[in-house]
């Protein structure tokens, strides 16, 4: 048989990737250094570079994905080592400058859709490893228009002022009062992982609000939940192991990832080594809690609650069960699930309208779907059932209006992803 050897080579490199990414003391990159390249690949995976730098159906890392921002669409660049359309002519210093300072080789400004406010924390040694890895990619000739923003946002120099207000350059500084594990987690979450890019609210200038770090945000009409240690809507009820399992397998058993987090898990965290996942979990659990106070639940006698309960029994309870307990590993538990009690109910609304699909990983290959039900539930009905879910089985959160559903429906109707 011809391919057995190929397969064992593939397995070998995979095994190398699973080595913890610690030991960043390796000196300068040597492009022939297999260990350095493998480390760079693992770091690029932790940074999930491929997610933004790959167009739908396009060559990996060849760019061309349109990132929607409040200021217009930004096309992601080709970061394969193609000399004309990619970054083949970049030196390691060039990459380090982009990551650390948000600047192009010629000195021009990058937009923070490229999360350099996070990447600035990555060590030079790690950037060099990523550079070494990117040099091994097959060069893809893919020319991407880099000037799609409308006036005045197309003036890159304006980023100079933005940086002055919102950007603090500087690599990660460990906190000597914390454990090495905590610091490792902080380095990954705050740096390459750029978790805050989605999980922290934006200000009017599109910058993460530093004072509300990791307190939840809305991304592409999905709720990126609060991931502080908050009990109401954060990770307060999750153990370190719950977080590790979630990042590794796509689920805790009762919570299943969908939406943009499905991609993050499939492309990135499920391929990261366990010690790094544990470090991230320890950091998230220990760094503190912040969020809105828990409101009083709506009474069962509320009209919206009564309508919602009837809809829930008819439409939802076969899978999620009457008691909101769901089915382990398959249908999320709604009782006590913090996704249901976020300040922003967008995920609940959109997943009922348009459906969704849970992450699939090697550990948990079944990727169940939430069917789209928007075709048969009105805005009022969805508002009622979401309100019911947010205020039943011990859950308590603000009610949802039909207007909120209407606004979201217009934006998310289309095939489930």
């Amino acid at each position, binding site marked *: 048989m011809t391919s057995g050897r190929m397969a064992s080579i593939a397995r070998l490199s995979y095994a190398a990737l699973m080595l913890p990414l610690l030991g960043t003391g390796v000196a300068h990159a040597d492009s022939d250094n297999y260990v350095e390249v493998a480390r760079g690949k693992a770091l690029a995976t932790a940074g999930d570079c491929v997610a933004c730098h790959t167009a739908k159906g396009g060559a990996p890392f060849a760019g061309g994905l349109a990132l929607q921002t409040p200021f217009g669409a930004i096309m992601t660049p080709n970061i394969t080592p193609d000399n004309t359309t990619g970054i083949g002519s970049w030196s390691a210093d060039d990459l380090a400058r982009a990551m650390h300072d948000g600047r192009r080789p010629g000195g021009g400004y990058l937009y923070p859709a490229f999360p350099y406010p996070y990447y600035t924390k990555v060590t030079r040694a790690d950037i060099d490893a990523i550079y070494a890895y990117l040099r091994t990619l097959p060069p893809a000739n893919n020319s991407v228009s880099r000037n799609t923003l409308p006036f005045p946002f197309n003036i890159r120099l304006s980023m100079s002022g933005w940086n002055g207000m919102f950007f603090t350059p500087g690599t990660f500084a460990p906190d000597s009062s914390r454990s090495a594990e905590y610091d490792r987690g902080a380095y990954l979450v705050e740096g390459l992982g750029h978790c805050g890019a989605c999980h922290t609210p934006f200000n009017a200038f599109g910058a993460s609000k530093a004072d509300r770090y990791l307190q939840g945000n809305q991304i592409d009409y999905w709720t990126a939940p609060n991931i502080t240690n908050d009990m109401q809507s954060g990770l307060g009820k999750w153990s370190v192991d719950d977080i590790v399992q979630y990042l590794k397998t796509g689920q805790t058993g009762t919570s299943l990832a969908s939406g943009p987090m499905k991609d993050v898990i499939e492309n990135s965290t499920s391929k990261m080594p366990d010690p790094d996942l544990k470090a991230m979990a320890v950091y998230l659990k220990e760094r503190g809690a912040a969020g809105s106070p828990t409101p009083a639940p709506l009474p069962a006698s509320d009209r919206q609650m009564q309508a919602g309960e009837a809809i829930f029994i008819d439409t939802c309870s076969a899978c999620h069960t009457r008691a909101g307990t769901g089915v382990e*590993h398959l249908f999320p538990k709604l009782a006590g699930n913090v996704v249901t009690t976020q300040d922003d109910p967008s995920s609940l609304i959109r997943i009922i309208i348009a459906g969704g699909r849970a992450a699939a990983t090697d550990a948990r290959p*079944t990727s169940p779907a939430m069917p789209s039900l928007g075709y048969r539930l009105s805005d009022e009905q969805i508002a009622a059932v979401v309100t019911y879910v947010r205020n039943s089985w011990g859950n308590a959160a603000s009610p949802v209006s039909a207007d909120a559903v209407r606004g979201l429906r217009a934006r998310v109707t289309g095939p489930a992803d």
Partner: protein
Amino acid sequence: MARRLPRKDVVIVGLGWTGSIMALELARTGLEVVAIERGPWRDTAADFNIGTAPDELRYAVRHDVFLRPRQETLTMRNNPSQTALPIRKWGSFLPGNGVGGAGVHWNGQTWRFLPQDFRIRSHMTERYGAGILPEGNFIQDWPVSYDELEPYYDKFEYVAGISGKAGNIKGQIQPGGNPFEGPRSREYPTPPIKQGHSQELFAKAATNMGLHPFPRPSGTLSVAYTNTYGCTMAPCTYCGFCERFGCANYSKSTPQACVLPALVREPTFEARTECEVTKVNLSGDGKTATGVTYVDANGEEWEQPAELVLVCAYALFNVRLMLLSGIGKPYDPASGEGAVGRNYAYQTGTGSTAFFEDVKFNPFAATGSLGMVIDDYNGDNFDHGPHGFVGGAYINNAYTNGRPILYHPTPRGTPNWGSAWKKAVRETYQRVTNVGAQGSVMSYRNNYLDLDPTYKDPLGRPLMRMTFDYQDNERKMANWMADRCDEIAKAMGAKTTQVNRLVGPWSVVPYQTTHNTGGAIIGSDPKTSALNRYLQSWDVSNVFVMGASAFPQNAGYNPTGTVGALAYWALDAIFKYLKSPAPLVQR
């Protein structure tokens, strides 16, 4: 002219139960595997939305997930003196199409055959003398024993998550299970599903009659289950949309639920859907397969070279592909010689419809595998001496569904339309149940498969011709069973009963069962079997043929459990074959 593609290690024809199992297990060893499937890709999330999956008109009436007769059908006749005509609308049986195959739309009833079923010829002859074997029979012992298959039955059941109650664990009879079954190495992976009121009445009546009722082993699951491949299934909701439907609840044991989520992650696996394999290609001396030729959805012809060819289509179409490819000698009923196409068999269905007065059954709260069963009259679990027939049946009381379009039983003599019909439907719907017998069919000289001399498919290839009728032995057996069913129905408290007997020639029109077996059977003698005991072609040693086409005759059970066991049994042999490619049994 077919364009030649790069060589693969393994090409699999058909991506149903056996194809997906083979693909996963072989791809996991690093082999390059391509599965070629003539129907579409099908996935629970994308194709079986809970909001639209229970659509009886689309799926049950209009046959949405089945093979289109226009794409491929077969011709049928009852005996060699007739001229066969094409089946233009599926009736008696419903071949699947697309990824998952018939494993998508089955009911999930998952049985093991009895130990004696595997040596039925020897067993019956030893106990009753050769005179009990029917005239013209081709009954053969299987070349593999129950004990040899037991670990593989177990493997399949734990992949599929089957819900049931063991009756015999390592020789110890277990209360509540089937005391007649062969010894199992362990309990079923999940406990039995819930039963309805009618099944309670059946169990009570059967017990009072000295019979041994137990819950039917079910591929619609009682509880959530994560299988050996890491795939997760949900508890059944008893919606009653199983047979003819894809399950939207992740509750039915299907390739979609049990195998494909793991398979699609394998980097050396590739599926090509809507591609019809037209032929297995052979080397000049005809002893080695070089790959397959197929036609894609655009009508383009491709040659896929491969080291190993696994024929994993539906039983009937496995046989046709062998005949079209020249693998093995076609069976000739005139001379009785030739192996491919012989020993085609089917299943009998008889019983008693029981009408009650003061009950309210809920047939709509059902699953395809719900039911209580007795096995006292199956195989040779009872004395055949006084009856003069071979074979047996399980007798069950089940509701697979109470769906609005096709489920409206009425007493005989009720008009087929109008107010009297409506009144009868209303009065009967919750007051009727059925006690049914699903029986074995032996193999005979004149029941066989070959290529039709007249009719062709759209690609110009001859259709397969089925020559089949029930023989006296089966009629005797099935009608004797109908009387046993009637006894139980009456003991359940039915006010009136109607006995449903096997009369007249076999017809392709009413649905009976999709348990078509044989045609490419395993055996010890290459003159009378197409495959050796490892499901390897006697004639072309790098071709293995999975499925119920391997059964030498059919037992009184649903076939899928045995199909799954044979696949894992063959897989172990294929691993041996790969180390040293050669015939695994010398002819």
